[in-house]
């Protein structure tokens, strides 16, 4: 808790600092004034709300439907399709966004050019540099993929008798889905929605590339802008970050109250896991799902690979458009091997530590009567409200200001702690959502028959939640492997991972080489994900 609360406290306190020249500070409201004196702030807040609403209004129903089909029906190839969505989430957003620009730029976008070649099309129908362009890029780079990833295991943990009762009483599939399934799934839907809101408040990479040209700013680009002033306006940036923190308080309270109001148990002693038959629609649904999965996985992956193999991404008409030079530049880079090794250590340690720590937190919050469980739950939300660089600043303060932690400064352990904290909200919420679904009678049966709490956890709970834990481990792995904003601030020359090598290439404007590093991280994570899925499929409620 200290590791999370300290940076959060640093953020709030720093927002009231007025920085002097000698790093000594006074207190005041000047940072808040700077943050809100920006005339663009109001439109930035409105834009953030609009993008968030538009994204979620589209993504949430689609993701729920897709996840339900994958988890609850007899669609062929469900596991492979689900894995495609995982892959879609693993892909680095920048090359994918550049790919969409290549297709949808109003002047030179390939799709627009093709369409304007048709007799009845007068002007380019698509514009990636627009509000809907930004929404589209978000949906296809991560939003739908991650929501399907999060919903599917939860839907799998649902007793089939609930759907059957609805269907046999004459309700159609959609009515059953949105009238029965979604209300039962309130904890997971609520958690995903909250995570999506926080993510929207922090997302800025796509907005920087697609929004800046038409001066479309969002809340997070205002924070980014303050951090890139000279000198960086840390107190003002932290004032804005505090707002995210304050916005989250009522939302988290609301979520806790909703979940506490009634039981959302979907897995009890009489659990039936069989799937609904899609009948004659089976293959049609399969092809529709395949098309969606390909759109958010294969199309971006093609962009990514093109990016690594083209002399300059997007230029097909030059004398020598294809090359392997970007691959050799990365592989023969003097720090590549060390960075690769560091990434394996960092991401591996983060994944293992995350699974253990987040399970413990989720278990305490959901399964115990520990007096501090509500604050603990709230604390687990805090990391998601902290922009990466600001979390880094907080951790630097913590490690340097605490004598017994000081020796760890500059070591890999600081990086691991930082990346574990960064993954905390997502990981804890996923495990919590699963635990809420599991009836307590399963564990009580073990205790009644003489088993200990540990026995009931190990023999009953653990096998059921294993797929969820593997998902959390995989997500923590990729998050640690991709983390730039926090890691860039606290890594040393000995601990630098691949994400910083990628940053080096980005700074050099060598996006193709940066994409190579992205592919390596994706392949690494996909390998881990594949192993974890193979293990997960052998465990879980249905086994």
């Amino acid at each position, binding site marked *: 808790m200290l590791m999370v609360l300290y940076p959060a406290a640093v953020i709030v306190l720093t927002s009231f600092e007025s920085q002097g*020249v*000698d*790093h000594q500070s006074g207190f005041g409201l000047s940072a808040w004034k700077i943050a809100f004196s*920006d*005339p*663009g702030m109001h439109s930035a807040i409105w834009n953030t709300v609009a993008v968030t609403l538009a994204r979620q209004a589209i993504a949430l129903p689609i993701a729920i439907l897709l996840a339900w089909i994958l988890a609850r029906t007899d669609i062929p190839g469900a596991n492979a399709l689900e894995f495609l969505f995982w892959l879609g989430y693993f892909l680095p957003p920048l090359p994918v966004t550049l790919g969409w620009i290549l297709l949808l*730029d109003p*002047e*030179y976008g390939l799709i627009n050019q093709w369409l304007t070649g048709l007799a009845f099309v007068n002007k380019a129908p698509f514009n990636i540099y627009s509000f809907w362009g930004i929404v589209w890029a978000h949906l296809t780079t991560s939003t739908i993929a991650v929501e399907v990833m999060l919903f599917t295991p939860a839907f799998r943990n649902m007793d089939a008798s609930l759907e059957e009762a609805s269907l046999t009483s004459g309700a159609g599939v959609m009515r059953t889905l949105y009238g029965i399934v979604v209300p039962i799934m309130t904890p997971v839907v609520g958690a995903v929605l909250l995570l999506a809101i926080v993510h929207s408040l922090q997302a800025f990479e796509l907005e*920087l*590339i697609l929004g*800046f*040209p*038409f*001066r479309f700013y969002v809340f997070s680009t205002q924070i980014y*802008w303050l*951090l*890139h*002033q*000279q*000198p*960086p306006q*840390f107190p003002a940036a932290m004032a804005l970050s505090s707002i995210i923190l304050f916005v989250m308080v009522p939302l988290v309270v609301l979520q806790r109250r909703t979940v506490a109001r009634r039981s959302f148990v979907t897995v009890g002693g009489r659990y039936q896991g069989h799937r609904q038959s899609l009948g004659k629609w089976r293959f049609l649904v399969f092809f529709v799902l395949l098309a969606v999965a390909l759109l958010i996985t294969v199309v971006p992956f093609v962009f990514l690979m093109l990016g690594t193999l083209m*002399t*300059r991404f*997007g*230029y097909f008409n*030059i*004398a020598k458009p294809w090359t392997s030079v970007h691959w050799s530049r990365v592989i023969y*880079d*003097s*720090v590549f091997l060390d960075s690769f090794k560091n990434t394996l250590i960092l991401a591996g340690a983060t994944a293992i530590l995350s699974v253990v720590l987040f399970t413990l937190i989720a278990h305490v919050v959901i399964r115990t009567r520990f007096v501090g469980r509500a604050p603990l739950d709230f604390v687990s939300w805090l990391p998601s409200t902290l922009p990466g*660089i600001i979390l*880094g*600043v907080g951790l*630097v*303060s913590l490690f*340097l*200001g605490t004598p017994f932690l*000081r020796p760890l*400064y*500059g070591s890999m352990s600081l990086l691991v702690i930082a990346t574990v904290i960064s993954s905390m909200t997502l990981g804890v919420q996923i495990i919590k959502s699963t635990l809420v679904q599991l009836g307590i009678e399963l564990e009580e049966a073990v205790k009644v028959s003489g088993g200990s709490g540990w026995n009931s956890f190990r023999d009953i709970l653990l096998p059921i939640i294993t797929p969820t834990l593997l998902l959390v481990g995989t997500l923590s792995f990729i998050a640690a492997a991709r983390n730039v904003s926090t890691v*860039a*601030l*606290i*890594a*040393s*020359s*000995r601990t*630098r991972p691949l994400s*910083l*090598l990628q*940053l*080096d*290439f980005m*700074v*050099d*404007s*060598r*996006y193709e080489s940066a994409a190579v590093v992205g592919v390596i991280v994706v392949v690494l994570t996909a390998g881990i994900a594949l192993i974890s899925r193979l293990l997960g499929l052998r465990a879980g409620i249905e086994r």
Partner: protein
Amino acid sequence: MRRQHGLHLTAILVMVLGFALRAESQEWKTKWDKILPFSCLPDAKKEGKVAVAGPPGTAYRDVMRAFEKKYPEISLEFQGFTPANFTARFSKERQAGQYLWDIYITGPTSFDVTAKKAGELDPLRAVLILPEVRDESAWLGGFAKAFLDSEKQYVFAFQAEITPQVQVNREFIPESELNSVKGLLNAKWKGKIVIDDPRVDGPGSGRIALWSGQLGEEFVRALLKQDLAVTRDGRQLADWLARGKYPIAIGANDTEIGELQKLGIGSKIEPLAGKLAEAWRMGTGWGAVRLVNKAPHPNAAAVFINWLLSKEGQTGWATIGGRPSRRMDVPRITGLSPEPGVDYFDIDREERLQLRDKAKEIAKAVLQ
């Protein structure tokens, strides 16, 4: 007799001068020997390490590697940072009483002023020991002119790069239609110009700062009202210019344009001509060095700085890093190295800081 007396005097003067020169040469050698590894007092070797914070990017890492080859006894801990990241980390470390860095290499930023005022930078001249480093004739405009700070002590700019203020893709706009900087205000260029975000430090703000000094603030305001597209991505900017999406670019990266032109793309992209003062600027890029105070490895730091500013170090900066050096005796980079004798407007000097800040304020007000 008088002639003989004169000869004696000359001989004495020559001897005195000779002794003085010899003494000076012995002085630098004594200093150098004291800090240099393998000498009788190998302080730098004892320290064994130098901690350098530098710019991010692969090229700069590769430049620094040459130091390790030259001085294998001194381990180089080089780490690339963006200015925002380094400032944040440095500030927190100082607050905690941790002095972990010896040298900071980056472009001129307001860090220079705040760190100097806070006494966090040490004067560089005392550690610039090698005669070739202090050689007046080696540096463009002389040794002292390379210092960016008002005191000529703390921030030494070893990179000098000339860049055009504006690039025009002549495939889309012939020279007859646009041939001067002031011509950018013509209403027909509305919506045709892209600028690197001038609200933050960078190529865009540097360029409008120069114009606000040369052509006045009103010119800058009028230009920014030309419905400019804004980006912070140098690559995106270069691509747009090459494809003609925005055929006029302010703040385009020369290297980026060069890379495109090597591939046969944007071959008609040219600097917008005009009066020298309006059309070209001289900048430092990432190439300025500072000695951080209370450095943990002061002797190794001195060895590093002398190497960096030597002909050998600067040759590496120019050939491996691909950035033009202020040293005149290293390979020039065509199109980027300044011409000797030309008085370029150097926007990076401390005394022009206000000009830069004011330009950013104007941009912020107009571009919202």
